[in-house]
């Protein structure tokens, strides 16, 4: 009896109900401090930098001006760059969906030893640095690269795919498709295989089963994978820098050039802020949409 009643007494180390509980804050404190120092401070510095003036003769001018933002937003040169960046983002994302989602599904249907082997093979590229992978593509796509020679041989094209949008898309898809595979894989883990059998038993064809039963259940995974791939593509640097070089600039490489070639730091900073805000807006809006759509049906089941 004594033990039972003691359960109901507030014990010494249990905080009274309404008092402010410090533990969650203490627990996430170190992470938050790290995050603020490593991300917040550079971000604030970038914002400050973007408000400086600049002239080619004098360099940095310590004023407060929106001139860099005006330049970045008005100049058609930058319009083209942003347009290219987001077009690449959308295109690469779509291709990753088309390639990655079926890939994940097929792998999930393999027998045990092969399943793990193929999953590792699909995710393996993540273990290799982006630069190395992209340089690999340079070898393939270059003027005497394997792919170029092969294309020449079948007569499809005689130009190398280097410095083309196609080449950039191919390399970016290769770099980012594992993220789509992981994301869809995680969603597939939650799908009860009996639902597929149920669809078949009710007379659905394989295709109808995939379209009406499997796809809707993994759609949240596809959508979150898309978000990751889109964000990564829109801010990608290494691959566009190597495959597209100066001829096909995207936002990240343009920023790099403003900082290091032109030395127009305020303009680089302004471009970086614009890229950040646009990315954040896209991601935020997309997330809202997805959340609203799936909270009810598939939520955290």
């Amino acid at each position, binding site marked *: 009896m004594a033990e039972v009643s003691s359960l109901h007494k507030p014990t010494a180390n249990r905080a009274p109900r309404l008092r402010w509980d410090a533990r969650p804050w203490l627990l996430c404190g170190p992470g938050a401090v790290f995050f603020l120092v490593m991300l917040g401070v550079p971000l604030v510095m970038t914002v400050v930098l973007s408000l400086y003036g600049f002239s080619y003769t004098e360099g940095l001018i310590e004023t407060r001006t929106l001139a860099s933002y005006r330049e970045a937003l008005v100049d058609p040169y930058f319009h083209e760059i942003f347009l290219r960046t987001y077009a690449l983002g959308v295109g690469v994302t779509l291709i990753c969906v088309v390639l990655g989602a079926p890939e994940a599904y097929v792998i999930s249907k393999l027998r045990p030893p092969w399943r793990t082997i193929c999953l590792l093979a699909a995710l393996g590229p993540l273990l290799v640095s982006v630069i190395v992978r992209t340089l690999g593509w340079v070898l393939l796509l270059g003027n005497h690269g394997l792919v170029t020679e092969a294309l020449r041989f079948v007569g499809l094209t005689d130009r190398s795919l280097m410095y083309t949008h196609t080449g950039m898309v191919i390399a970016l898809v290769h770099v980012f498709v594992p993220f789509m595979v992981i994301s869809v894989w995680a969603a597939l883990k939650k799908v009860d295989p*009996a639902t597929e*059998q*149920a669809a078949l038993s009710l007379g659905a064809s394989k295709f109808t089963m995939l379209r009406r039963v499997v796809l809707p259940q993994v759609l949240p995974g596809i959508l979150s994978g898309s978000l990751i791939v889109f964000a990564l593509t829109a801010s990608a640097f290494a691959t566009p820098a190597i495959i597209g070089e100066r001829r096909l600039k995207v936002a990240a490489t343009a920023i790099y050039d403003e900082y290091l070639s032109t030395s127009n730091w305020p303009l680089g900073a302004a471009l970086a802020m614009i890229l950040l805000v646009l990315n954040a807006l896209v991601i935020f809006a997309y997330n809202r949409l997805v959340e609203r759509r799936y909270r009810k049906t598939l939520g955290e089941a």
Partner: protein
Amino acid sequence: MSYLSLAGLSKRYGDFTAVEDFTLDIEQGEFVSLLGPSGCGKTTTLSMIAGFTTPTSGRIEMAGTELSRVPANKRGIGIVFQSYALFPHMTVSENVRFGLDMRRIKGTECTQRVADALELVRMGGFAKRYPRELSGGQRQRVALARALVIRPPLLLLDEPLSNLDAKLREEMQSELRQIQQRVGTTTIMVTHDQSEALSMSDRVVVMRDGRMVQVADPLQTYESPIDAFVSGFVGKTNLLEGRLVADQAGRTMLHLGELRLEIDAASRAAPVSVSLRPEKLRLVPIGQGRLSARVVGRQFAGAAWHYRVETGLGELMVNAPNLGAPSHANGERVDVDWPLAAMHLLDTEPRPLDPANAAGAPDHG
């Protein structure tokens, strides 16, 4: 020609045999239950009939067609899965109408059939809900409605009522039975609940370790279990060890401890097990029964009292109907009595299944 004919159906996973030599002919409109302990291969058997598991060997024929080349989505079988397998992204009514969509049944007929099916399982008010907003029993009923709405010629039910409360379960049992009798749907139902199997089926298949142990109608399964496993699995029983002895007069005597009982059996002069159902034993005043006993425990079960009594043959279970009279107290000395016909002799070694029994149609209903 039977409607569904399973011949030598086996499934092996590596060295492990999930189902071995399952042979059964099922008539059109028949209701067959598969009964057996967990892991004995019931779901695997259904899955082979449904076409989701490829048999290692054996044949399945439905309405005269060999099914091995017929894919699962062309078999037209209604299935309730053990895990329900509702589509989580569809509402209850969308789940139920899926099968009708596949059959291109549209408009008012579709709406009407969905509504009827949901009404049948008492889920009419839940059409707009998503599966995750339902309780386990409600999900199970939606799964049942989804399987029934397509009016399949063959229904495979994998523990379709396991999650329902006693009252609803009885309602659903009689609904299923009615549909099955009205429409003539051939049904195979897996269940863990022996009383469900006995009350609903035309025939009961008792399985153990992937093998069929006994195929018989419910009464026979209960009254004449083929071995100790069946008699223990289908209802409770007292198992007594005895010997058959032929005496000088040529009568067959059953020796049970001190007891000598003359029984009507071919004399085999062998050790036997005797199965005695608890409800066939009676507690009677001292001197009026076959065995003297002492009550060592009792449980009230509403309609009956469950006694445990200590006897010279060991502890026995005795069920007595609750007639409102005061029951026997713990420690009370009584006699136990039973009609000779209540004793069922079992082989001490399992017998191979009688093929004539497995292949034949039920001789009733």
